[in-house]
């Protein structure tokens, strides 16, 4: 059984995993970080998005062993010590969620999007959200929230 070492939300982690263990299984079951959701388990929905070495990935479509030596960031790692970060705050204020199941993935995708493109157009945001499905909102308020968060983060 491979032993892997990585950092998750800046904390060092060493775990024994099977070859077939998915990164999302390590995160949820191995580490108890259940903010990362499993929606479709077929790399369509994006509820499981985390960052690996700063880039967004679908953690249901990556082996845990492939994250050996990597820096992993989950939704638990993006908030300040108290309160919400600007993206989370904007989703709250713009009613960018209803049931909330997709929200962790939306937050992680939006975080990567705004890191790479701090001043996106609406089209950029919609293109950037292609890998994240939401069955409640129709996306309108999610897009508005990310545009608003971008503005806040630029100021």
């Amino acid at each position, binding site marked *: 059984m491979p032993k892997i070492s990585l950092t998750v939300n800046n904390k060092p982690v060493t775990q024994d995993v099977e*070859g*077939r263990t998915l990164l999302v299984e390590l995160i949820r079951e191995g580490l108890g970080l259940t903010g990362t959701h499993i929606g479709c388990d077929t*790399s369509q929905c994006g509820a499981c*998005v985390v960052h*690996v070495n700063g880039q967004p990935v*679908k953690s249901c*479509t990556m082996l845990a062993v*492939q994250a050996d030596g990597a820096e992993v960031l989950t939704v638990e790692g993006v908030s300040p010590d108290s309160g919400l970060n600007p993206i989370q705050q904007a989703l709250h204020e713009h009613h960018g969620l209803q049931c909330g199941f997709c929200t962790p993935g939306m937050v992680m995708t939006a975080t990567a999007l705004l890191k790479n493109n701090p001043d996106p157009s609406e089209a950029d945001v919609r293109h950037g959200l*292609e890998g994240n499905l939401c069955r409640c909102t129709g996306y309108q308020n999610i897009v508005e929230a990310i545009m608003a968060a971008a503005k806040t983060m630029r100021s």
Partner: protein
Amino acid sequence: MEDFSYQKPKTVDDAREAYSASADGLFLAGGQTILPVMKLGLAAPSAVIDLGGIEGLRAILVTDSVVSIGAMATHATVAASGDVRQAIPALSDLAGMIGDPQVRTRGTIGGSIANNDPAADYPAAVLALNATITTDKRQIAADDFFVAMFETALEEGEIITNVEFPVADAAAYAKFANPASRFALAGVFVARTGNSVRVAVTGAGTCVFRVADMEAALAKDFSATALDGITVATENLNTDIHASAEYRGHLIGVMAKRAVEAAQTKGGGK
């Protein structure tokens, strides 16, 4: 998913040896197709040999005449490369249209073309730009590489190392994406080099293919109107829940015109 032994060799030679030594080995590139396939139980290798530890396979090298992309270069890296955009903007555009941002973070050009999904984007660029696929054993011309649905000229255990794209004078890719999966219902890559034009279609048939009538018409007159009246035979096109063969045939004409117009306005690298 069935369990397997996992290896991450550091060289192509070690990867080939690990494959030879395994009973039922499988090379893992970005995993964006093969991991879902393994989850469904459609593949159950005894050994997974991860090519992600081979540093040299990620290199992107651009000269005045050739863009060479390492097999393990991700779609995101290709889309973000200023050098690639300078030389063949259509290739950057195509890489940025594959799947979604998360798939582009992991997915690789080598994995995409080795899999040869009938609706994948890269095969259209490889075929239209007349690229050469280099493996650990030989070089394969694009025209010989894509054999049939999910089938290529690669032999058992053969490893793609890089893909070399000659820089075209003008090129563009136009894709009508399935709104759910982002795979191409029909995607057309048009490339002009001198008086030679190549048109490659993905998503519409069982395997990427060229359209000789369009190529001949565009070689005489590289304009969208030159494609007026040219139709693609529909008997070999796909019919499924997403679109009929007739609809896909129509889309090929529309996408080809859009690609020619885009190639004229955005041009190529030279």
